[in-house]
């Protein structure tokens, strides 16, 4: 192991201390600093969205009025969805961890367009500002999906929320273009596509979706604003428009968007599994191709959100079958991860604990997705709490656990300090318990017929709702403990050395934290990123 970071880099200072002024952060074009700023911004968004979630759960402690009135409830669940989807989950892993790691994993100095990268951060802030400014105008009550015709007529502040999300989309496209070009053009000579660390495949597949699907979201949101502000009626049947058309355009983006959230998390899992099993992946190509497969098939599944919207039964059948394909690709990944662990030398660290949580929640939630993609079952579950539980299992259970795993795993890379294992494992246990207690009752509630987005419910649903609310307290304390421990370790943790986990992946072949230019010497591509069969000359 190498001595502390600053000494190991022979003169050049780490990117954290090379410059320390405010402007050296705010005007930086260093992908590492931009990545950290994205992580910080998305973390704040998660806290805000989380507080709203807690209020929503407390409201459901009793059937009728508990703490907020019905109108406020509608505005709060909209706010929760908008913040968590667009301000937190879509940018968190790609623009945060992805920004930090992509050039390091490719042995590059920076992303392809560093200034565009910084611009994408400020566009994100602008979009977040516009979106959240709606809170001062009383918020909006359409739900995060902005379904027409209601969103075109709602008297609440639809326009700023929708316009803000439009701006966030521009930021997302900028990141996507940057990452695609970086992956194509900045690999060093000698690094082929199948030599890249698997996380890069996850980010690359995500970027394809960001670049090709986000414009369609932008279009549909712009039209909602025009309908709302000028009564154009593009989606208003009374004026010759078609509200279902909005659903088509919206889900053409927003279904692939769930793969924007999960694919980078899957990339994190691939890295963590290989490092802590000290093995090459069971099949590198299976993981790489299934990432692309999910991204591409994801473009053809949007219709499963329209099973009860009057879509033709043939279209629904086709969309259902194509949707099941996503489960096939996901299963390939899960089997490959398990096969990688099989006979590996597993180190049960905090990141690895989150991998197991991810696998449990993702497989469980994924199974419910398989069931829902079947038209006959979905008609029963449509718009119930079953759906809410399903997508929280995938998104929170997938994206959030992937993010926390990644933050523990790469904390030494980012800060040069080690996270606290004991606190990390306790937090992981809390997250798992809290998560299961929060969302399993919601499956039962939905199956029993409790609709989503309703303020009120019959008394017979109260017991399960109370359990779910208590679970949300456990879950949030687990998340707070995890992030609190990470923040503490980032400033006060023990020094890590350049490669504390003994990983073979390329980002560990330079100092931790890296120097501003990333690498002192050209990245040595031998041994490969997952070759644990030889002694690592870089240790």
């Amino acid at each position, binding site marked *: 192991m190498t001595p502390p970071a600053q000494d190991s880099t022979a003169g050049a200072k780490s990117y954290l201390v090379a410059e320390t002024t405010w402007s050296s952060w705010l005007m930086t074009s260093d992908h590492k600093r931009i990545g950290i700023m994205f992580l910080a911004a998305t973390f704040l968004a998660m806290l805000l969205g989380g507080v709203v979630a807690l209020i929503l759960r407390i409201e459901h402690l009793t059937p009728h009025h508990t703490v907020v009135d019905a109108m406020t409830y509608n505005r709060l669940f909209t706010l929760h969805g908008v913040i968590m989807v667009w301000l937190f989950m879509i940018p968190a892993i790609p623009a945060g961890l992805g920004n930090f790691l992509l050039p390091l994993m490719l042995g590059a100095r920076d992303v*392809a367009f560093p200034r565009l990268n910084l611009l994408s951060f400020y566009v994100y802030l602008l979009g977040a500002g516009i979106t959240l400014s709606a809170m001062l105008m009383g918020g909006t009550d359409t739900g995060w999906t902005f379904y027409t015709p209601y969103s075109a007529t709602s008297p609440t502040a639809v326009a700023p929320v929708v316009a803000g999300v439009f701006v966030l989309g521009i930021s997302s496209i900028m990141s996507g*273009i940057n990452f*695609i070009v970086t992956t194509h053009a*900045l690999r060093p000579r000698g690094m082929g596509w199948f030599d890249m660390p698997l996380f890069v495949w996850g980010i690359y597949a995500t970027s394809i979706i960001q670049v090709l699907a986000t*414009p*369609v979201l932008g279009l549909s949101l712009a039209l909602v604003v025009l309908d709302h502000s000028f009564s154009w*009626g*593009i989606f208003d049947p009374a004026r010759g*428009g078609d509200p279902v058309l909005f659903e088509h355009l919206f889900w053409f983006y927003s279904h692939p968007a769930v793969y924007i959230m999960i694919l980078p998390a899957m990339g994190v899992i691939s890295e963590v599994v290989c490092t802590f099993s000290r093995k090459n992946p069971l099949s590198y190509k299976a993981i790489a191709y299934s990432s692309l497969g999910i991204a591409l098939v994801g473009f053809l599944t949007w219709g499963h959100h329209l099973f009860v919207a009057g879509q033709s039964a043939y279209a629904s059948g086709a969309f259902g079958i194509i949707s099941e394909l996503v489960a096939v690709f996901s299963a390939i990944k899960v089997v490959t991860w398990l096969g990688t662990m099989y006979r590996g030398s597993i180190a049960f660290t905090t990141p690895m604990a989150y991998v197991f949580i991810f696998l449990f929640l993702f497989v469980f939630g994924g199974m419910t997705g398989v069931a829902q993609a079947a038209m006959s079952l979905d008609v029963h579950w449509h718009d119930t709490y079953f759906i809410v539980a399903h997508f929280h299992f995938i998104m929170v259970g997938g994206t959030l656990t992937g993010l926390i795993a990644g933050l523990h795993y790469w904390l030494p890379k980012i800060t040069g300090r080690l996270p606290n294992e004991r606190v990390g494992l306790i937090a992981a246990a809390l997250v798992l318990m809290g998560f299961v207690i929060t969302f399993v009752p919601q499956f039962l509630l939905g199956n029993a017929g409790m609709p989503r987005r309703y303020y009120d419910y019959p008394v017979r649903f109260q017991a399960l709702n109370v359990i779910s609310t208590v679970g949300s307290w456990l879950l949030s304390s687990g998340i707070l403990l995890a992030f609190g421990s990470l923040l503490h370790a980032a400033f006060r943790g023990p020094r890590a050395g350049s490669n504390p986990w003994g990983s073979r992946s390329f980002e560990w072949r330079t100092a931790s934290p890296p120097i501003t230019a990333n*690498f002192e010497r050209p990245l040595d591509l031998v041994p490969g990123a997952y070759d644990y069969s030889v002694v690592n000359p870089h240790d």
Partner: protein
Amino acid sequence: MTELFAETQDGVALAERDSLRRLGMMVFLASEAMLFAGMFTLYAAGRIRHPQAFADGVDHNLRWVGTANTYVLLTSSWCIAMAVVRLRSGSRRSALLLVSATMLLGLLFLGLKGYEYQWHLAEGDGPMAVARHDPGIALFMGLYWLMTGTHALHVIAGLIFLGYVAWRVAYRQANDRLLEVAAWYWHLVDLIWVFIWPLFYLLGRVSR
């Protein structure tokens, strides 16, 4: 090896920067294409539902403006393509003349477009008045303002981009690669108009 490394360390050597820009522009154009693909989808859905109203709407537009603008943009695309060829063969001066011609044609396009917008406004058909029409026509006029408006914004963006590149070529010795990337963008804007032209100016009920 050290030389190669110096290249990557300094971010990107000049030749590599060109290839990054080309790839970046290609990916961006794919993104732009998806934006307009969404609009063409809306048009198709509207036209299938209201064939008569859409045909009437087409007859309501100024066909000569749309047609003239098609020639204007196609000519401008030829100019910018030739500008790239000229710059590649080293004649900076004639390349700059051709870029200027492209930009003038772009301005002419906007002028004609503005004339048509003015004509619609004078008829009381502005973007704020869409809701006053009968259902099908309202949809057509909404799409007209949306699609031609978004396209016009792209023409303006293209003009700004071309102006910047022309400045780089004239005073900063920029090479033909940068101009080529700008030309690609201009070609896409032109290509989109080639589809807007029949949908809003030709496929009417009356053949003139």
